[in-house]
């Protein structure tokens, strides 16, 4: 049976890992290459590198880090942040990324998903969506969760998958940083709408939150988190053991 994936996300700015609490208040953690190797050794199933650099200097630094990571870490690497063209796909795939996640770039130009899927395959294109409830409706937010695009989230995800996105990351802004558990209602809605793998993001605060996620929503394929792993609040090895004890397929 395929195992449920545990994915630490590393937000990288100017060559360092940071994590935003509710997308604000950035705080430096450690070297991305060291952290990636550490997570791989601990049993992380995949890594996400999210480039939140604005400057072109920082961007070069990011690809250098990516290359160095891919030389040393042999688990799947997904790269996101500032991906808005096929050239961006090319740039990070050449440095060792396996999958590329698009967010605001796809909102600006929805044809990017289809074009990238055609060139690199569906499995390479991850649609990452920041979602927040507005008047009871799931809305897609852009620019790191700051701008309401007005797009209805489920419809947007359905379109993205229809165009060739091979995987969806659902990041609930409502639960992000709160550490009260994943947004099960939102995830359920997404899982019911698409048949590609769905990765839950936003809200994990403890091991039990992952257990609840996979037990309540067996259709969810993976759980993604950042700070709770970076600060050691949840150790991946412990999490995997607990998952297994609860009958959730996990790679140990």
């Amino acid at each position, binding site marked *: 049976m395929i*195992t449920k994936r545990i994915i630490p996300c590393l937000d990288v700015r100017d060559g360092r890992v940071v994590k935003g609490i509710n997308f604000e208040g950035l705080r430096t953690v450690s070297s991305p290459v060291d952290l990636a190797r550490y997570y791989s050794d601990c049993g992380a199933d995949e890594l996400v590198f999210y480039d939140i650099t604005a400057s072109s200097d920082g961007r070069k630094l990011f690809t250098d880090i990516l290359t160095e990571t891919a030389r040393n870490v042999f688990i799947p690497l997904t790269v996101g942040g500032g991906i808005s063209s096929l050239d961006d796909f090319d740039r990070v795939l050449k440095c060792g990324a396996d999958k590329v996640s698009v967010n605001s770039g796809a909102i600006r130009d929805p044809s990017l998903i289809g074009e990238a899927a055609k060139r690199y395959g569906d499995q390479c294109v991850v649609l990452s969506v920041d979602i927040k409830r507005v008047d009871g409706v799931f809305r897609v937010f852009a620019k790191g969760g700051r701008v309401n695009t007005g797009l209805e989230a489920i419809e947007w995800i359905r379109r993205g998958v229809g165009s060739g996105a091979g995987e969806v990351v659902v990041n609930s802004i409502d639960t992000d940083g709160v550490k009260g558990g994943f947004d099960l209602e939102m995830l359920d809605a997404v899982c019911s709408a698409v048949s590609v793998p769905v990765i839950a993001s936003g809200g994990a605060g403890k091991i039990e939150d992952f257990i609840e996620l996979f037990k309540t929503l067996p259709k969810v394929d*993976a759980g993604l988190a950042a700070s709770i792993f970076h600060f050691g609040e949840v150790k991946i090895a412990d999490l995997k053991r607990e998952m297994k004890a609860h009958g959730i397929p996990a*790679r140990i």
Partner: protein
Amino acid sequence: MTAIIDYGVGNLFSLVSSFRKIGEEAAVTADAETLLAADRIVLPGVGAFRDAAEKLEATGLVPVLREAAESGKPIMGICLGMQLLFEKSFEYGEYRGLGLLHGEIVPIAAHVKGLKVPHMGWNALRFAKPEHPLFRYIKEGDCVYFVHSYYAVGCEDSLLASAEYGTEITAAVGRGNVMGCQFHPEKSGDVGLSILRAFCEMKEGALC
């Protein structure tokens, strides 16, 4: 030296890095002499079968690969590279493969209902031939990383390991010196590196 065939399909960065990691020299090449001089050959590949088969054909390396296979040189196909070793594929039509292994490539979706396709993620290996030298450093139940929508059937004579995904998905195959992994050893952590290490320890002619 391990020669990784360069035929313009997929990204070889991780594959090259994984061989370097285990201390093995790896050359990405489309040169016939380099391939024949290599201790072993890797046929990589991602994407669609037809496109890859055409690109491989266009390199003119197919006869070289056949010669290497006959000479007993260890050859490993990875992912789509493994699928190319078989007789034919039914991916968007019907296309001929290299025919170095018996069997054909069919869509997972036609055999498995209610499961997501591609079969993507970490799945446990179930050994069909536990004593195979490729598995020297790993054990049954170890997980490896898969990303694929098609799989090999009718290959009972070469089946080395499978993975359970609604059906028995062919995970590793081998007949003599010609081997293949449906999963990505270069993305399967220590287990994957251990498989590559075992492959690198195989001697030409030893498996015939």
